[in-house]
């Protein structure tokens, strides 16, 4: 391992070292504040470590890892998101759990896993990253032991994640058995030589798709999402919705690119069907939910469907659209969960729609932030979500996928309904006294974070050019 390798892997090494050190820190002295501060520091340092890593791109560490602009961009995205989630976590856990320090340790580990995912170009690193991420998530999801739903959510996630890992692995084994390669390029070349998709590789891809699909929470592997979102602590739910899915998506893109996936129509059709099903199932099921966590879960299923549409376009605009959409979606999701976190009292999560009745009249700023986030999820102008959705539709039109786009439009309209419902609830006049009983904590750090997120959201919605240029530049490298 050369010096270049070290610098290139700087963010990853920093964060994983921080996980070990924070573990020792907990062993030496159990103090919430110290661990929290240390984790913040770790994220900041990892973010700084991206700068020297930029000197060497594109840099490949054979055979497992590749650090190019795409992966660095996503590394940065993951780190920033993790940082924001961390900022939102402190107050949430302060009152809730007697042993809160391990949360940060697990969060660091999970982030590390996602970072491994985005730089991997080999089944082995993919698998390692995925499992680091998953196993930390099991702990994170069930972290609030006292809460009755948390262990159920944890076990559900665990069994299903393990099941999907098994599928993923078996699929990988089949692909490996046929091609003799585990690195993406090697597989791509081998398939190219074969000239078509043999049955075994097809089966392998199908099984891998189950594993990947589970992590992304797309139909028909989405069943875990609402339960897990509901049972998990709010910051963890935010993590699952964003970083966990984002990491997997990035590796999926890389894989698809490297094996020239768009040359195989069969794959395209399968993914297209999944995309449509995800959009419909997500939006349709969200309509009847009363729990905002579940609504967000279903909405994230639908959003993955939207992203798949861009993914399927197979044009460069599509990849740009995904990147932009991911950024917008990360900001929005974390923001939405951030509102939930801020609005939760020290003992109870503010999770039912009813909890938000008349919120605008009591906590106008938070309500405005939440409105902005929901509108961004719905893709209404002035928000980043609008530009993101626009980008996706653009990619779709570019690729002439009229049917998929039509589905997307229909679903956007269905989706509107449940976002609007929450907004309407917030703006209801508080005529009945028997509304919410939750006394929100409204921590200062959380509020500031939310403000920043909103500013970012509107900024991207009004002036997206800088971000687009960055993404476009980055995509020149990968395609």
């Amino acid at each position: 391992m050369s010096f270049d390798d070290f610098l290139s892997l700087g963010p990853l090494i920093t964060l994983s070292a921080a996980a070990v050190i924070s573990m020792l820190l907990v062993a030496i002295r159990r103090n919430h504040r110290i661990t929290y501060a240390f984790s913040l520091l770790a994220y900041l340092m990892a973010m700084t470590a991206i700068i020297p890593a930029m000197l060497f791109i594109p840099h490949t560490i054979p055979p497992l890892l590749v650090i190019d602009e795409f992966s660095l961009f996503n590394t940065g995205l993951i780190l920033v998101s993790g940082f924001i989630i961390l900022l939102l976590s402190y107050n949430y856990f302060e009152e809730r759990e007697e042993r809160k320090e391990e949360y940060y340790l697990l969060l660091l580990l999970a982030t590390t896993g996602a970072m491994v995912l985005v730089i991997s170009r080999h089944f082995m690193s993919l698998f390692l990253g995925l499992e680091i991420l998953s196993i930390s998530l099991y702990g994170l999801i069930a972290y609030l032991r006292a809460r009755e739903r948390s262990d159920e959510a944890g076990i559900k996630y665990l069994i299903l994640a393990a099941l999907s890992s098994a599928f993923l692995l078996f699929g990988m084994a089949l692909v490996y058995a046929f091609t003799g390669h585990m690195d993406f390029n090697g597989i791509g070349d081998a398939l190219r030589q074969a000239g078509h998709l043999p049955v075994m590789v097809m089966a392998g891809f199908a099984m891998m798709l189950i594993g990947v699909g589970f992590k992304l929470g797309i139909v028909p592997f989405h069943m875990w999402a609402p339960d897990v979102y509901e049972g998990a602590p709010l910051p963890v739910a935010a993590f699952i919705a964003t970083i966990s899915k984002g990491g997997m998506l990035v590796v999926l893109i890389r894989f698809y690119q490297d094996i020239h996936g768009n040359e195989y129509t069969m794959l395209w059709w399968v993914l297209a069907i999944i995309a449509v099903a995800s959009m419909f199932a997500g939006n349709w099921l969200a309509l009847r939910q009363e729990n905002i966590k579940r609504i967000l879960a279903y909405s994230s299923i639908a959003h993955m469907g939207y992203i798949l549409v861009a993914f399927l376009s197979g044009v460069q605009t599509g990849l740009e659209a995904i990147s932009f959409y991911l950024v917008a979606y990360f900001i929005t999701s974390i923001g939405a969960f951030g509102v939930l976190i801020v609005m939760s009292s020290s003992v109870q999560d503010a999770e039912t729609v009813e909890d938000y009745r008349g919120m605008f009249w009591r906590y106008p700023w938070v309500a405005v932030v939440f409105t902005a986030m929901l509108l961004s999820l719905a893709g209404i102008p002035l928000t980043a979500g609008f530009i993101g959705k626009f980008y996706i539709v653009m990619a779709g039109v570019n690729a002439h996928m009229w049917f998929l786009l039509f589905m997307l439009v229909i679903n956007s309209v269905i989706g509107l309904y449940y976002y609007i419902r929450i907004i309407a609830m917030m703006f209801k006049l508080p005529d009945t006294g028997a509304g919410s009983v939750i006394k929100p904590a409204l921590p200062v750090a959380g509020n500031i974070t939310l403000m920043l997120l909103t500013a970012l959201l509107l900024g991207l919605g009004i002036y997206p050019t800088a971000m687009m240029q960055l993404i476009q530049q980055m995509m020149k490298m990968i395609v």
Partner: protein
Amino acid sequence: MQSAVENTIPVWPFVAYGGIVLILVSLILGLSYVLGQRHKDRATGEAYESGIVSTGSARLRFPSQFYLIAMLFVIFDIETVLIISWAIAYQEVGWAGFAGVSVFIVILLAVLIYEWRNGALDFGPDGRKILRAYKKRRKNGAANLHDYTDIQQQQAVL
């Protein structure tokens, strides 16, 4: 396929040995079944608990300590597996491999320290904890010395 097992030593002695061992064991058990006497008495079918009539189910619930040990084993034994694969090839991978394993082992040791400090490695009754609990009960006035020994015995057995 470049395995050494296939072309150097024959497998059949191993199989034969295993077969004979199995036959032997089953023979011994079978013989004793055939030869052993049978009788039926009043207390023949009862569990032996030092002469006291047993009460309650024998399926006891155990302290999570045992579970912890199992986990420690599972984790560290798997680590051992990884170390083993390095140990056989340490010559080939040289100092780089050594550095890698060192990092690995340092992480392992960090985990050990963490477990240690969190009391995962304290298997017996914790004297201080018992004392604290005892004092608390004394203060509440509900305790007497008998309770204290109870707790101690309970923990000492496991």
